[in-house]
């Protein structure tokens, strides 16, 4: 007699990698980022070397529409963030 473990069968979980992480961002009047908050500290944006937009999965209920910014921060770090044009939220994500 085999005891029921209660566990769900199947191939196991699949977790997407490189998921966006919510980020607090200060933006100027045009919507461009001027400062980001990383680990509780405010970092001013020194430069925006690149900006690009992706629009995808428009046929789905939740389409993907984002504007990505590659930012050079005042301390020299380079981070990539995006603004979700559907929800208006900001997130950090390696592209």
């Amino acid at each position, binding site marked *: 007699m085999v005891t029921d473990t209660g566990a769900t069968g199947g*191939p*196991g*979980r*699949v*977790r*997407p*990698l*490189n*998921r*966006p992480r919510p980020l607090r961002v200060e933006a100027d009047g045009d919507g461009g980022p001027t400062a980001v908050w990383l680990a509780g500290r405010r970092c001013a944006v*020194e*430069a925006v*070397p690149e900006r690009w937009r*992706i629009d*995808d*999965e428009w046929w789905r209920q939740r389409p*993907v529409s984002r504007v990505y910014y590659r930012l*050079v921060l005042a301390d*020299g770090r*380079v981070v990539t963030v995006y603004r979700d044009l559907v929800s208006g939220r900001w997130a950090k*994500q*390696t*592209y």
Partner: protein
Amino acid sequence: MPIACVYVPRFAVEVERQRRSDIAARLVLIGEVTVLDCSLGAETSGVRPGMRMSEAIGLCHQVVVLPPDVPHYERRFEEALDVLDGLSPVVEAACLGAAYLSLDGLSVEPVPFAEEAISALRRRTGLMAAVGIAGGKFAAWTVARAARPGLAKALPPGEEAAFLAPLPVDLLPASDSMRWRLRLLGLETMGDIARLPLGAFQQQFGPEGKRCWELAGGIDDEPLTPRVREETVVRRLQMPAPTVALEAILMGVERLVYAAYGDSGRRGRWVRKAVVRATLDAGGGSWELPVPFREALADPRDAWFAVKCAIARRPPQRPVEELEVELVGLSAESGKQSAMFEGKGRLRGQVEEAVRQLRAHGGQASIGKVVEVEPWSRIPERRAALVEFDP
């Protein structure tokens, strides 16, 4: 340690001009989506390697656009390196058209040595090079770039920093973001960088900044990486007529594989890889197909089977004039390698044991395996996923 940089400007264009007399006096662009190389005239019109081809065509009047034939350029560059090998015991191939030679231990004066290199290259390959000699690779390269083809220039020892000072920072091997920030800070020349304290500069730009600061100040102790000359066996076959028939091409390659295996140069050694090349008809350039074997092969029948399968998957798309088979990775093996299955099985056993130990240590530790899901996706989180690993 004096180093000579032998530099053939616009190497790909020069090589194309040698085999096509009709483009001798024309503006030339080589590339597909982006420009790989361009002639001096095109460069004067504002074209730069790496530029989008559509943009480059717009800048030039009546330009000839050629598809890149990289295997051919590489072969011609190898010929040039063979010539330079006769001049110095240490030759490093920097990139297509540029090589470094060590003058260490050679009882020659720098400028006559450089003139000999230019003359030998001109005589044996028809290519016109410029040579720069300095105490480090970077300085030698900048000197060679500044010299006109056919001329040699040597920097006196210790003069590197003074020579580099007025040159633009764009010559430094810096990333795009670093170049952008340098411009933002108003640092236009290498002298501007060299005058700054290293600590402050490194704090701004990290290890890349340190390297650039040193190069800008003429400090460059990067050693030469000697070119490794691999022993190979090459066999060629001229097709009776240009052909696109796969059967005819396969027949020719089969003959070449068997002939190469029978070559005395192989001396019974086993082979790890074959490279099949073809010269295509009517200026169609070259076609190249590397076929690495899963294990070293001693039997031409096994090698031919692997090569045949590879060609069937990716045959040449234009009529073939000449075929070539090169056997590379000649190993000293005399017995059969262990089967791949055993090796994988051992590794898998080790992974399973590691997972068991982790679970014993941390309870239901989650062990994952990264798999590609949609690597082409524009949405970063769709590209790869972590799946539970359950051995």
